[in-house]
């Protein structure tokens, strides 16, 4: 019998340490690529503001900028 059930839970999960898809070493690369993509796509979207281009350039640019910003912030040491 252990003193605390939480500690038992910790020991039982020994084989499953937390492992995210993007590790600390790749955060900068991922962040940079996404931000660069966002820059290019928003530039292309700016050249031709049509409804069709919202789906082709606008949406991917927004998504890339959102995730890219999070990873870039993490990469520079502000872990959010």
């Amino acid at each position, binding site marked *: 019998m252990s003193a605390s059930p939480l500690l038992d839970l910790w020991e039982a*999960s*020994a084989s*499953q*340490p*937390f492992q995210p898809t*993007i*590790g*600390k070493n790749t955060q900068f690369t991922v962040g940079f690529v996404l931000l660069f993509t966002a820059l290019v796509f928003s530039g292309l979207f700016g050249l031709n503001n049509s409804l069709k281009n919202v789906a082709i350039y606008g949406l991917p640019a927004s998504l890339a900028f959102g995730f890219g910003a999070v990873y870039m912030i993490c990469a520079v040491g502000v*872990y*959010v």
Partner: protein
Amino acid sequence: MRLDRWALMGLIQLSWADSNLTERSRDILPSTFKPPQHFRNVNLVRKINLEKSYPRETINVVIENIDAAPQSEYYLPFEQGTLGRVGGLVVKDKKDPDNIGFHAEIVEIDPYGATEYYKITLPTALPSKQQQTLSLTYWTLAALSPVPFQIGQQDKQYIRYPFSAYAPSAYTTLKQKTKLKLPSTDVPDATSLPKELNADGKADPEKQGTSYTYGPYNEVPAGAVQEVSVRYEFTHPLTHGSLLERDISVSHWGNNLATEERHWLTNRAAVLKNHFSRVTYAQSAYYNPPTSALKEMRFPLTVGSVDAYFVDDIGNVSTSRFRSNLREANLELRPRYPLFGGWNYKFQVGWNGDLKNFVRRVKGTGETYVLKAPFFEGPKQIEGVEYERIVTRVILPEGAT
């Protein structure tokens, strides 16, 4: 909706802060309360360890149930005001360390009563006429006072510790002894007691190197007090943390566990008689004599910690060193100025660590995680550090429930 939630969170935090201050688990009893005399102490040995900057007392006592019925509630008395400064209390069965399940609880009588008690509930009730050996250990904060209160910058510091030669007890004690463990043999004052009190007919205290013994004494009634005090050399800082705030932020996206500690330190050592002399201080840096000033601190961090920083209100403090390798991670820092008696220092330190050392996914569940992080780390000093109040906050990722 969103605002409501924030308000709710604010309220929850407020009520937590309140419960910390008032300790709701106290039983309030009338001032006429006397612990029922169900036990007697057959033999009691108390050890007072004064080698650190806070006294640690260990009471090893053989208790006997003198009541007809099995009893399980043992009371440990403290003088008014002392109980609030007890930093920790450990109760063990001396003969059987595997016997766990002791429960200690503060019982408050009334705010003006002379004595307060810890109620210790034994895991199993002790049958009538049976004996059990308890080991009670507790630390008291802010219990040591320097005498004289003012010393020169390079003088030795002497500490006075008043206590009772009879161990505090709510029960009749048949035989008892108090042993002191002092940090050095330089003891200018120790109250002597006449030999009539002693069971062996010797005058107290009995000295042997750095340990002093009061007793043995024969039967002493409950609550008996024999004031004595000892004054000994202790040229070390009495570091007192009035507040330690600690944040542990978990970042799943960043794969990082960030720890930040904000310390408010005071040195309770003897204050300086004259002005601080920088020349004397600079000279003493070469031969490094023992001093009552707090000059450096060493933080042993979790192995694998990175990016340590040490800042205070002014900004970064460059007199720190972070040594990190596969086996250890040590943050060694010197405060912006040496902390002499009565001086304060507020600073913050922080570091990062890989999340895989602290968070694991719980087996058999989808998105449940378990976090294991130190409650507090803080500096590890030879002479010890005491904390009055520690607030540890765990900041979970956005969306965690």
